[in-house]
């Protein structure tokens, strides 16, 4: 802890401790516990504060239950040998889990793009974990070729072409492919990724859907429904009512605003 190395901070902690220690009978438990870890460090290093604490101890009755509560650092140390983290938390520290693809049919290609490696790596990791919990087998992230754009501009705002400067922008890409997953689940996955989109990471997805061999029959069956759903759109399709005119082409071409010359001389001539 950096506290132990800065004497100025130390003294301040000491000052803060003093009223706390003195009013320990009445002070709330939470306030004390929050201040305990620094106080432990301080007591190890500064004799002044230590004395105060000892005096505080001797002054107050030792029966209070708060004193028997162990420091949280000690408690954690005691735990670390015996207990383990929950599996879901542990998994965060390990490589992402994956489902195994049974048939290996590609269903969805997700491409992540970013200018920073950290962001794109982090988000692809996140996407793979999300896919695991949704039961989607994924492969990847495949690092696709980087897109390098370079620009060369003169350093000055005017002439001096001999002194130039180069700039570049490197787009990093990762491909995550989902294999034989239900298309609706894939959509849920994509929606989830979109909801928790990471800053500076772009996403692009291609989805493929597979159908049984009797496609034609299915299409025939789905036809009337599709038409019904399209009715609203198709009714809006066509020529705009306000632009419709029964004029022939010649009449349109002879329209006044097209025929008259917009110059002062023509105005004079018409008069």
């Amino acid at each position, binding site marked *: 802890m950096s506290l132990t190395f800065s004497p100025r901070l130390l003294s301040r902690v000491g000052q803060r401790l003093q009223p706390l220690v003195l009013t320990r009978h009445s002070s709330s438990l939470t306030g004390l516990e929050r201040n305990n870890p620094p106080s432990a460090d301080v007591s190890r290093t500064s004799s002044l504060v230590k004395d105060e604490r000892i005096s505080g101890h001797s002054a107050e009755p030792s029966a209070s239950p708060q004193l028997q509560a162990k420091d949280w650092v000690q408690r954690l140390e005691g735990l670390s040998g015996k207990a383990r983290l929950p599996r879901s938390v542990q998994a965060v520290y390990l490589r992402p889990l994956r489902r195994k693809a049974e048939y290996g049919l590609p269903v969805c290609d997700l491409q992540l793009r970013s200018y*920073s490696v950290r962001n794109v790596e982090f988000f692809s990791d996140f996407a793979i974990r999300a896919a695991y919990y949704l039961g989607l087998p994924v492969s990847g992230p495949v690092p696709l070729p980087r897109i390098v754009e370079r*620009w060369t501009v*003169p350093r000055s*705002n005017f002439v001096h072409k001999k002194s130039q400067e*180069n700039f570049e*922008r*490197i*787009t990093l890409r990762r491909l995550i492919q989902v294999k034989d997953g239900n298309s609706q689940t894939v959509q849920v996955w994509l929606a989830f990724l979109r909801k928790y989109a990471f800053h500076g990471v772009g996403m692009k997805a291609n989805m493929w859907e597979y159908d049984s061999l009797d496609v034609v029959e299915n299409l025939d069956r789905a036809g009337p429904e599709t038409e019904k759903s399209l009715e609203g759109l198709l009714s809006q399709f066509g020529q705009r009512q306000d632009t419709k005119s029964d004029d022939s082409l010649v009449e349109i071409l002879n329209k006044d605003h*097209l025929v008259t010359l917009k110059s002062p001389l023509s105005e004079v001539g018409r008069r």
Partner: protein
Amino acid sequence: MSMFRNKKLDLGGFINGKIIRDHTKRRVFEANEVERQALRYVIRNTTLPQRARAQAQLQLAQMHAYTRSTQIRNRCVAGGVARSVFRDFRLGRYQFREQALAGELPGVRKASW
């Protein structure tokens, strides 16, 4: 042309006369695009009578210059400069350099290879 210009300023960001003019040209072109295309169609359609096609040709030639798409020029949004404007950033080269060095363009950094 002042007759096309909006009475009220309808632009934000960096503004100068040339930018306003370019903006006006874009608006006028958009408003007249359909008419232009119709005339072009009449001119090129060989099944139409020759007279109508010639008429359409004349009329197209008489339309205002601002209705032409060739009048539109990309300009730097930060300085109004018309030359060497990057399409990716809509910035002139000097503005691009300044902003890139200031780290205002995401992902753009100094290159050395």
